[in-house]
């Protein structure tokens, strides 16, 4: 009898002390990036959005290209609620996230009946419809100009929004930490494993008796809520929301972030968002067309050379270093 108990069993599905490192990094970032706090806050917002996309595409294997709709819902929802008087940022964020999750719950059962090209088509189409509707309804959304000068009250009643972005940074960092912990809990659970099972072999999961549609719907709702949260945080930290929050481009850029960092990995989303946003920030002087070209080439390369993004490549390298030529 071979005893396989011990640390090797289901290693990925138990908490490890290394998990604290990113959180420490976030705390450290406050000091290290003190001149770029506003930018760093926007990176963290994107990281949350990337996380939400990773859950539904990377883990559950549901290929949707319209996730920006939930981000936009959260962003506009937050802005409109603030303009209507709901100015407390935390309450505002929670409500916006719940709004997005609610829409996800309504749309999920319909969308999740589809797979492959049909799902891509429908999500793209719906995203296009929502974008156009938001554009036309400029009495509500401000159209091309968006909603400006949205005021939020101080965080926890004490910390005012400062120009240097220090409040924004800490505020978003706390939410990101919660999001990361939340995601970690979900994907280390039996439910998280089941999602991967659905991704790998849906037919087998059905035969195992798994309630696949319900599982996917739950994942979709969580993902929608997270995306909505990210949108709300964007509005709160920028005091502004525009149609960009609903654009299909946003979904595709987030997908590029995942591809860069490593799809289907928690930290892949984080790493991808940080690297993507940073490189973009430091090359923003150039013609945006060059950036688009670079992203396009990146996507082609990631698929062509299939290493699972940055983290995947690091993993492969680690394996190579650990057992060079060793037979197993």
């Amino acid at each position, binding site marked *: 009898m071979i005893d396989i108990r011990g640390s090797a069993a289901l290693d990925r599905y138990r908490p490890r002390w290394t998990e604290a490192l990113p959180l420490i990094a976030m705390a450290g970032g406050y000091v290290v990036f003190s001149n770029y706090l506003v930018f760093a806050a926007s990176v963290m917002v994107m990281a949350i959005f990337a996380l939400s996309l990773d859950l539904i595409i990377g883990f559950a294997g549901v290929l949707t290209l319209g996730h920006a709709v939930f981000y936009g819902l959260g962003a506009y929802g937050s802005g409109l609620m603030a303009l209507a008087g709901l100015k407390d940022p935390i309450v505002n964020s929670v409500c916006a996230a719940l709004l997005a999750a609610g829409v996800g719950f309504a749309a999920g059962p319909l969308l999740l009946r*589809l797979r492959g090209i*049909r799902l891509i*088509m429908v999500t793209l189409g719906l995203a296009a419809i929502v974008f156009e509707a938001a554009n036309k309804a400029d009495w509500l959304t401000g159209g091309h100009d968006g909603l400006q000068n949205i005021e939020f009250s101080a965080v926890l009643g004490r910390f005012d929004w400062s120009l240097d972005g220090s409040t924004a940074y800490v505020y978003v960092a706390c939410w990101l930490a919660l999001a990361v912990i939340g995601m970690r809990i979900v994907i280390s659970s039996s439910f998280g494993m089941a999602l991967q099972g659905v991704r790998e072999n849906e037919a087998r999961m059905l035969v195992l008796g798994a309630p696949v549609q319900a599982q996917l719907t739950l994942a979709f709702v969580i993902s929608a809520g997270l995306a909505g949260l990210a949108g709300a945080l964007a509005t709160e930290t920028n005091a502004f929301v525009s149609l960009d929050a609903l654009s299909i481009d946003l979904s595709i850029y987030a997908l590029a972030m995942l*591809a860069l960092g490593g799809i289907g990995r928690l930290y892949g989303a984080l790493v991808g968002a940080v690297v993507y946003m940073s490189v973009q920030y430091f090359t923003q002087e150039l*013609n945006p*067309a060059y950036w688009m070209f670079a992203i396009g080439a990146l996507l*082609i390369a990631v698929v062509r050379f299939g290493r699972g993004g940055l983290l995947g490549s690091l993993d492969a390298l680690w394996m190579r270093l650990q057992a060079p030529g060793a037979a197993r």
Partner: protein
Amino acid sequence: MQPFLSGVAFVGLYGLSYGILLFIISIGLVITMGLMRVMNLAHGAFAAIGGYATIALMKSAGLPYGLALACAVVGVAALAVLLERAVFAYLYSASDLDQVLMTLGVNFVVIAFLTLVFGPNLYPAALPPSLRGSVDLGFRSFETYRLFLTTIGFAVAALVYFGFERTSFGARLRAAVDNRTMAQAIGIDTGRLFSISFAIGAGLAALGGGVGMGLMPLEPFYPLKYLVLVLIVVSLSGTGDVRSALGAALFVGLVDTAGRFLLPEVGGFLIYALLIGLIVWRRDGLFVPRTAR
């Protein structure tokens, strides 16, 4: 009764011309998906490049419209052959996600390239003078361009239909789409079949881009902008054959035109909503009979 008939004629002609244009652009993708199950989200890029190349040849080489168009079509078909070797061949056995990522990447590269060469704005369609103006058909006058488009469109569609249904190449293609392993088993070289039909599909898309630029104006984001429309046609086409694709494309063209005509404000996206609803409801395609389980 006059305005009603006039309206019907308008929707009819304009809807059909739009539909046939969509057919020419989309048929390549319908076959690609049916034959190799590759989701090429960059298919619209062929149309865009075809349109831009036509204009570029007219402007820089001074070629007349027809010749420029022909050169563009051949050029894009050649490009497609290269692209297939370099990029798409890799996608045959790739997962859905990988196909989406890679073809989105191709889209971005093409869009970036077009922006850098032609600028980010809508490019004015350079239609030859003979195609401008309108023709009076008695009960209504129509733009000459539209009539031209409809004629060319149906002529090409007829050729494609003929090629698909009546030639031996078409027969082999139909067999391979229906059951690839079986086709291979009886000796059909599906790899070569695919390369050829991929090139033809790309060329057709380029033709659509060049001929349709009065209707679907050229801009760098063209591939992404019309992606949804093309995908709608593909999704409604069901089994990947020319007949159902023709039906689907004409249907989309007519419904879209009718919608915009009857409800100018919301017509555009009512259509999207309707078509999406259709796809969710009729998962197998519009003209495919529901098979009993």
